[in-house]
């Protein structure tokens, strides 16, 4: 009995000790200065957070936590962190590893990201971090429906103070709006507005997990181009080209259009009519691109203009009709690039494709992106390497002159923004002898036809000799 009590006490002590050590980072760090600049110019909200972090504990800290309210966590497309060293013109930015993190006892279901320092932060030391995080679908149109002649107004909800598991000694937040028309913004003293900038702060000495909700109601007529689904297929052909086919389902994600669409008003008073609608889209394609086509399921769309260049090509294109709130359009863009720019041989003998992930359209959110890399027939051991998490899958596709089918590596990711357009690799092994499979098939087919016709002409099939 006494032994059991004693064991119980030890267990409790160990549990307390362990729980203390998991929260050691929460109590040992503090943020000396935080400056946050949130850019609300487009429907992709970009937030730049500069943190000066100090280690006030006795042990070195290997990492720190970034906290986000639960409404923002599901809209976070990307979080990146850089450590800043050096001063003024000799600043060096070192990328840090950022991972989503689950913490027990998160107050009000806050979400976390864990930033790992390059070198552990010693006691008493400070480090300056630059954090960039991108939010999608965070501008809520209000009014929800607008007519053709009205401007689009949106709500942005955030906190005047930065949500953090650490104490923040001093902080300021700036919101940048695209125009000077701001209907209202919550006042959390001291808060003031000058032109296109709203400044909240400076706020002194806030406790961990401080939160002051604010709503900014402002005008935003930037194109709310949302691709609901994009399926990109990259077909590798060892005969020298890469064929890319992209299927888009595009919609206008802003305030819904209600009432009449008057073409005469749209054409004559363009500056005030349909101010939140958009017509022009831009796709950035690889430099040596050829055979570009832009069509939909009923035929070719002629409203496009291609400019090829040395570093990149630009396709300016328009959907068949301008997009107002809630309107949809679907289309297919296809193009071909030479294989030698993208297919390489790894040191271990495997081949790999080095291509850019993401969507070629500028300033567009993709709700669901599916990237399919079709490997030539006879490829084995496919694997994909990406700098962020995606869902991977394998499929088989049957195309021209296929017998066993082609392996397809399927990569799927939700909530994709232009910052995700980074290179990725797909490795596979391929024996060069398989390249002869298709020509041999065609040659033998023709050979068979000729031999049978020869035989037919020369064989005597009469039963009775004439």
């Amino acid at each position, binding site marked *: 009995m006494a032994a059991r009590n004693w064991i119980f006490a030890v267990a409790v002590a160990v549990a307390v000790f362990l729980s203390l050590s998991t929260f050691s980072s929460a109590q040992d760090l503090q943020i000396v200065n935080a400056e946050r600049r949130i850019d609300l110019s487009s429907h992709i909200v970009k937030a730049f957070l500069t943190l000066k972090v100090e280690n006030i504990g006795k042990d070195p800290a290997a990492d720190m936590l970034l906290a986000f309210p639960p409404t923002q966590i599901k809209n976070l497309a990307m979080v990146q962190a850089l450590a800043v060293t050096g001063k003024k013109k000799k600043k060096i930015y070192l990328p840090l590893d950022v991972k989503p993190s689950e913490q027990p006892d998160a107050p009000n279901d806050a979400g976390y990201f864990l930033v790992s320092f390059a070198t552990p932060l010693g006691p008493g030391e400070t480090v300056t971090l630059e954090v960039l995080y991108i939010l999608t679908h965070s501008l809520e149109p209000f009014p929800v429906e607008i007519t053709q002649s009205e401007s689009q107004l949106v709500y942005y909800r955030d906190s005047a103070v930065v949500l953090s598991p650490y104490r923040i000694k001093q902080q300021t937040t700036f919101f940048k709006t695209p125009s000077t028309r701001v209907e209202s913004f919550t006042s959390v003293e001291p808060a003031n507005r000058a032109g296109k900038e709203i400044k909240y702060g400076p706020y002194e000495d806030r406790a961990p997990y401080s939160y002051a909700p604010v709503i900014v109601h402002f005008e935003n007529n930037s194109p709310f181009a949302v691709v609901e689904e994009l399926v990109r297929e990259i077909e590798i052909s060892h005969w020298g080209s890469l064929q890319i086919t992209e299927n888009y389902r595009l919609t206008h994600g802003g305030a819904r259009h209600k*009432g*009449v*669409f*008057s*073409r*005469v*008003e749209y*054409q*004559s008073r363009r500056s005030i009519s349909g101010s939140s609608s958009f017509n022009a889209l831009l796709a950035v394609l690889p430099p040596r691109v050829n055979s570009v086509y832009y069509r*939909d399921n*009923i*035929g*070719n*769309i*002629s*409203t496009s203009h291609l400019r090829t260049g040395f570093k990149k090509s630009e396709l300016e294109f328009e959907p*068949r*009709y301008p997009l107002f709130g*809630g*309107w*949809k*359009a*679907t289309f297919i863009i296809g193009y071909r690039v030479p294989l030698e720019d993208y297919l390489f041989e790894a040191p271990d003998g495997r081949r790999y494709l080095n291509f850019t992930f993401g969507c070629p359209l500028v300033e567009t959110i993709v709700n669901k992106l599916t990237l399919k890399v079709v490997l030539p027939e006879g490829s084995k051991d496919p694997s994909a390497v990406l700098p962020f998490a995606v869902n991977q899958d394998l499929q088989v596709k*049957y*195309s*021209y*002159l*296929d017998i066993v089918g082609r392996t397809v590596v399927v990569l799927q990711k939700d909530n994709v923004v232009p910052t995700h357009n980074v290179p990725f690799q797909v490795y596979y092994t391929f024996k060069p002898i398989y390249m002869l499979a298709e020509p041999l098939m065609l040659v033998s087919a023709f050979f068979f036809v000729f031999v049978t016709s020869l035989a037919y002409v020369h064989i005597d099939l009469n039963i009775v000799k004439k």
Partner: protein
Amino acid sequence: MATLESPPPGTSSSAMRNAFGTVLSALILLLIGVLAFSIRLFSVIKYESVIHEFDPYFNYRVTQFLSKNGIYEFWNWFDDRTWYPLGRVIGGTVYPGLTLTAGTIWWALNAINIPLSVETVCIHCVWAAAEAYSAPSIVLTSQSRDGLHVFDDFRESYAWLSHNTDVDDKVASWWDYGYQTTAMANRTVIVDNNTWNNTHIATVGTAMSSPEKAAWEIFNSLDVKYVLVVFGGLIGYPSDDINKFLWMVRIGGGVFPHIKEADYLRDGNYRIDSEATPTMLNCLMYKLSYYRFVETDGKGYDRVRRTEIGKKNFKLTHFEEVFTSHHWMVRIYKLKPQKNRIRGRAKKLKLKTSSGLDSKAAKKNPWI
């Protein structure tokens, strides 16, 4: 082993001639086939590889159905997306040769893993039906200083309809555009190019020739949500609905005697200018074609009829404009829903608002 005998003298040269003759005739036949084929691909090469005429869109849509659902569904197909609310028995009334050929070719190619789409197969099989037509009517082009200008208004409107209206919405238009609307916009139509039911066509024609309220009643009884008209007055496209209007009047008048052709004629001619008859200026086709047309150039000059229009400034009471294509070639209108009417109360409400009370407060009260 028997020795090979040398061929009898004189036959080697004739054998050579025979062989040469066979090859030459085969080659000539092949060239004739290629030439015949290329001539019919003229509009495809010049404009684009889509089906250009009206009627072949029906064959294309039927082949699509066949390839998706198989031969048994095809034989038993009752199409409810056309001739609403009557429908059409396609399985029993179609001439299946073209469709089955295209479908078989598509199926055979896909079986050996050659992934040609149904559209491509149809364009190469449909030239037979397109033989009777010479001018392509889906994409129009014109040469200008800056090069080729493309008028793709039809497909722009069909794409808008297919993406921005509900799947079960009914679209009313003149029968010429029926097949294209069902195939490209994927919407149910009232009449199409099959023209098998004259009374149904006359109903649509009467609606187009009637004033707004009567037209709304007719279309509402057919569950129509959108009305589509083709208007060529801005760019000078002569095959528009105003030029076809005389048929709407004649066919409508043939079944419904209250439509009299004389009401629309001035000195034996159909006019839309200041000399037009009041019936003409009040009919739905006039209003839907020329709604706000005067705002384009200030005068309302119709480039096809080569005159200024008669009635320039007017409002629509029972329809609202939902889409007009880039060059005004296709105009789509929506039927306005009926206003809620409460007997007796409407007069009281008018008195209240005219005395200066806040109309918003009056509307919010649900008991008024």
